[in-house]
């Protein structure tokens, strides 16, 4: 029996826009176990982004319970939530969100700056190890504007790995990338998942979702479909079959 990383029960989230109440989540039950690679799918307005914000401890639910790695986040203060994000979570965004004019290494170091237990030497070593894990050892001292989109997203993935989180939350992480680069990123994430990382990946592209172990589809604040992927795609193999772009 694998450890449960995320456990959500009867989660509801309402937004108040003027006099109208928007029910973004209407009672969601969800469990993600260690080592899973979960696709969170749905059209815009389905509640998947709200779900991700709550899973990422960036937002609090209106009601219901959420346990992250056994910790109930309901009673936590703002600062405790920040600590939780710092220690337990890794984020990957659609638009990378790297600091400009800052080297890849320093970008990856960033989360560790907010953990006072980590000294500068360890910070440097862990950042280097994370960059090595995403295959960017030779790009450590490059600035974001000297790197391609795929490389920038790898830096962002390294940043999400550096604090050794219990789960990586990715929000449309391949949304800004072409098919080939998307597959490269997926190959990297599959590799990390193989090594035991739990990943929750928000996407609306079915072909990207096919790389994951489980798909959860949201609509109108409910989970309408939840299924394990049977014929899972292997990104590394698919990459080989892609036509090699002609070099000009």
């Amino acid at each position, binding site marked *: 029996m694998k450890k449960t990383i995320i456990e959500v029960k009867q989660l509801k989230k309402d937004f108040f826009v003027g006099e109208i109440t928007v029910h973004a989540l209407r009672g969601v039950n969800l469990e993600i176990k260690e080592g899973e690679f979960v696709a969170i799918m749905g059209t815009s307005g389905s509640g998947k982004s709200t779900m991700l914000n709550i899973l990422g401890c*960036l937002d609090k639910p209106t009601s219901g319970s959420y346990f992250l790695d056994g910790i109930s986040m309901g009673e936590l203060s*703002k600062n405790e939530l920040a600590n939780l994000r*710092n*220690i337990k979570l890794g984020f990957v965004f659609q638009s990378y969100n790297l600091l400009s*004019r800052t080297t890849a290494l*320093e970008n990856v170091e960033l989360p560790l700056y907010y953990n006072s237990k980590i000294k500068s030497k360890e910070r440097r070593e862990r950042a280097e190890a994370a960059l090595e894990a995403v295959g960017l050892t030779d790009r450590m001292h490059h600035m974001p504007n000297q790197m391609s989109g795929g490389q920038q997203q790898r830096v962002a993935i390294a940043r999400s790995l550096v604090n050794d989180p219990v789960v990586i939350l990715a929000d449309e992480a391949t949304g800004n990338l072409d098919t080939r680069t998307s597959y490269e990123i997926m190959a990297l994430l599959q590799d990390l998942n193989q090594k035991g990382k739990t990943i929750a990946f928000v996407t609306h592209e079915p072909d990207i979702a096919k790389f994951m172990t489980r798909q959860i589809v949201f609509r109108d604040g409910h989970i309408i479909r939840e299924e394990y992927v049977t014929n899972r795609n292997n990104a590394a193999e698919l990459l080989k079959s892609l036509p090699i772009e002609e070099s000009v």
Partner: protein
Amino acid sequence: MNYLNSIKIALNALKRNKFRAFLTMLGIIIGVASVIVMLAIGQGSKKSIQDQMSGMGTNLIFAMPGSEQKGGVRMGNSDAQSMKLSDIDAIEKNCPAISDVSPEVRSSGQAVVGNQNWPTSIYGVNNKYFSIRKYTIGTGRTFTENEIQTYAKVCLVGKTIVENLFAKTDPIGQTVRFGNIPLLIIGILGEKGENGMGQDQDDLIMAPYTTVQKRILAITHIQSIAASAASETQNEAAIEQMTESLRQSHKLKAGEDNDFQVRSQSEMVQMFSSISNVMTILLGAISGISLLVGGIGIMNIMYVSVTERTREIGLRLSVGGRGNDILLQFLIESILLSVFGGVIGITLGIVATQVMASIMSWPVVITTLSVVMSFLVCSAIGIFFGWYPARKAASLNPIDALRYE
């Protein structure tokens, strides 16, 4: 999160925008530099006035005839003849707070040596006058008691007289004629230079008061009294005692106005100091305004910076930065800006002051106080003007901040 990390983060953020950081600091740099320069000029002029004044003798107390009434008609001060030599004796006897006292009689006229002549003043004094007025004897000697008793035709001359009437020869032993009275030069006064009002203090002849009274002015009264208090702290007491002694010897009844005025040098020093204090405050205030404008510049840039870096703030919040960490980062950024700017401004101000002092030969004094003050003001500006932008940054919602375009 520790402060060292906050400082590192803030430093890195500033390094990413070096030119903008420099431009932001420029306001503070100019403000601080001008504060330092203006205060140095103000303090310098104050000190130079004080130096010149105390060069005239800080313990100096003057008494001169005041307004007089004759049958209800108020008379002018200068032609009053109320002061007598007996007043001097009384002061010597009655005033323990006064160490030295000398009569003073003056006349101006033409000094003649051979075919040279020079317009100057003659002062009739006693031997104590030199120390009262802080004159030194360059060469030669002062008057003997006998010379004073016998209205001897002797004198000491100032440097300006020597330069204008004695081209090459040694003046001592020669004769200078003042108002047709030939006076034997027995000494030369040490150089004293100009006083605070630009008056040449070396352009004078000093003779025994008896000589000036009897031979030149043909009067028996004295024009004024110069005295020095035993010490600076006894100035007040000396003025009081002298006033009392003069009232007694002038036989003034209680309630009657003084027919003389007593003035002390320290009062003059205070007056001029307060004038230059006002000037210093004025100069400081004007440059203080530029410092304030510099501070507002920092606030402005920090606001722009917070808006521009909204996504960065969102990212920092999402990777575990707390509101306080963000607040601290932006606060430290603005403090660093203003403190760096302050240090550069202080350096620039000191250099500019020295350059000005050497080129325009203005008297300048850079006080530690002005340096420390402007440094503290800078830090305060950093905190004050950085606080609101930093608060704004810290209060951002991570979700909105991450999505900010």
